[in-house]
């Protein structure tokens, strides 16, 4: 398991849990927030990432 395939496995695990227990969570939202979290994984200051996630949820709701 390497680099991107490690991420794929992580996303697969998330999708499986979503399908099983959280079907109301939009699939494409889950993919997008996961990408955001991966990009921000080395940020020590979480404020900006949390603001982006909040905006994403708000925008999704508006859609």
């Amino acid at each position: 398991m390497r680099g991107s395939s490690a991420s794929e496995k992580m996303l697969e695990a998330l999708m499986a849990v979503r399908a099983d227990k959280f079907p109301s969570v939009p699939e494409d939202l889950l993919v997008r927030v996961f990408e955001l979290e991966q990009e921000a994984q080395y940020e020590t200051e979480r404020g900006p990432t949390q603001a982006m996630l909040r905006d994403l949820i708000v925008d999704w709701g508006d859609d």
Partner: protein
Amino acid sequence: MEDFGIFYGSQALDLDAGLYVVHGENGRGKTTIINAIKWVFFGRFEDRQGRTVDPKGILNRDAKREGSTKFSVGLTLTDDDGVKTIARRTWEASGDGGLYVERDGKPLNQAEAEITLQNYLEKNVARFFLFDGEQLREYEELLFEEDEATQSEAVRRSIEQILGLPVLEQAITDFRAVDKDFEGKITKLARRTGKTEKLSRMVEQLETEVAEARKDLKGLEGLRDAEQEKVDQAATVLQENEAAQELVNQMEALQVQLETLTSQREERVADRKRELADTWEDALAIAVAPRREALEAEVEAHEVAARAAYDAEQIERSLAKIACDLCGQDLGDEVVARLRARLDQIELGEAEDGGHDPRQELAALLRITRSGAISRAIAFDERISEANTKRVGLEQDMEKIRDEIGRAPTDDIRVAGDQHAKSLEQIGAIKKQIEDAEAAINEKERKRRDLVQEISSNSDDDGEMKALKERDKLAADLADLFAEARAGFRDNLRGQVERDASDIFLRLTTDPNHLGLRINTGYGLETIGPNDEVFPTRSAGQEQIVALSLIGALNRNATRQAPVMMDTPFGRLDKRHRAKVLAFLGEMADQVFLLVHSAEVDEADLKAIAPHIKEELSLKRIDSFRTEIRRFEANG
């Protein structure tokens, strides 16, 4: 590298994917190359004793003599997406040195530069990619600790960082924060209506309490980390002075023996003193023994004389009657003659006897008996003498050990041992407090969420409130979703690391009874044999094999590719293990950099893996203070 350590001037290594072998004898700069990389990433590195090396001592001696006052090391890193990061760290005697980093052609400011490098290789993680075969102590805490409770948090976190788990953990933290933010908005909105004002105030109160509790929790975590650092420092001292520690333990055991022996000796001395008080009886008994024996003989003779006197009386009566006094028969002349002779004999004996009765004197002497005190005193004396001999022997052994310990810092070792134990105990206590604090916070959070739920239920569901509730639910669901995925993912990943480590281990070990490795929740590794039996101990060479297996498994499962650099990895390995490790190296990572000296690997070893070797280089001695990196030539 520019004027770094033994590398005079500017010298570079141009590396691609593949297996590189760098040959260098002792002191030619193998470890310096590893240290150069550490210098770029961390701005420091340690010597073999764990002490930070003073940069003044790193500047190449010849360069310094020529007037140079700085050295630097640069790295070009290419990540999975082909993005190049160039980093150069300079030390300048004047203090003007620093770190320069550009990523994808764009220079970064100082803070961004440090974070970027940290993201590439965090200090705790470095040990898995920059492997020093002579510093196995760095891995021993991984390989020895069976109990997750005593496993270093930093080690566990660093392994999970390699495996990518922080992504999921941070997502949970982020979504909880976002969820809380939406709940805050719901509470504020509900307050405007006045219906749920009291509930809103309770929510705010709980939020204040949680914030305070989190501050206290942070304090506890800081204490725990501080104690852990003490444990790590003490462990370093103990491990570096393992041999001396063993001697100290022996010394302490001998000291205990000596104290016990001294105590026993003192008891025997007291016993002897007590017995000596009664020895006069024995002495007297011994003194009178000859007289007693003589009296016993006299008593016997006296009794014989008494019997003889009785006989004489009988004989006289018989002679007077010229007839037997018992049966009345007449005595013949012959009998009379015999009786007269017997009578003469008896009368002679009476004269010799003198009529003295020794029985009274004997009775008096028989009252003087031997108590055995002298024998016992002698026995105690012998035991005291034995104890003295043993004591001399123990003191001689202790003296030898003192000489062997020599200048080893025995006081430091003792202090480190005490500190290690004390800090571990503290960590245990603090962890319990942390658990309690987290439980209390969770309880308050639960109450807060219940109140928010109540506020939400009691609020009018107008457009704004409805939207907020949906967003809040979505954020909460995402937090729970990531939490659920993390637990399963972590277990799967640990299982995968175990399988990979086991697989690699079986390829490297030569013992047919080794059937695999088992990993615990703290990523400690046990060697498993037949019937699931755990091998309780491992030799230094076996530890190295296990460490390499874990490193290989972590590299296989890491979210980011990274090169592996190994400095003198074969020192503890025999030829068979060495051959197996060499054969495996090409698979360890996409880029493997092997630094070896001639006693570790020979031509035959490398010939076996020649097809996998990208390039061989050598660290060529120019003089005692200069090395040049050159293409390797056999017999060169």
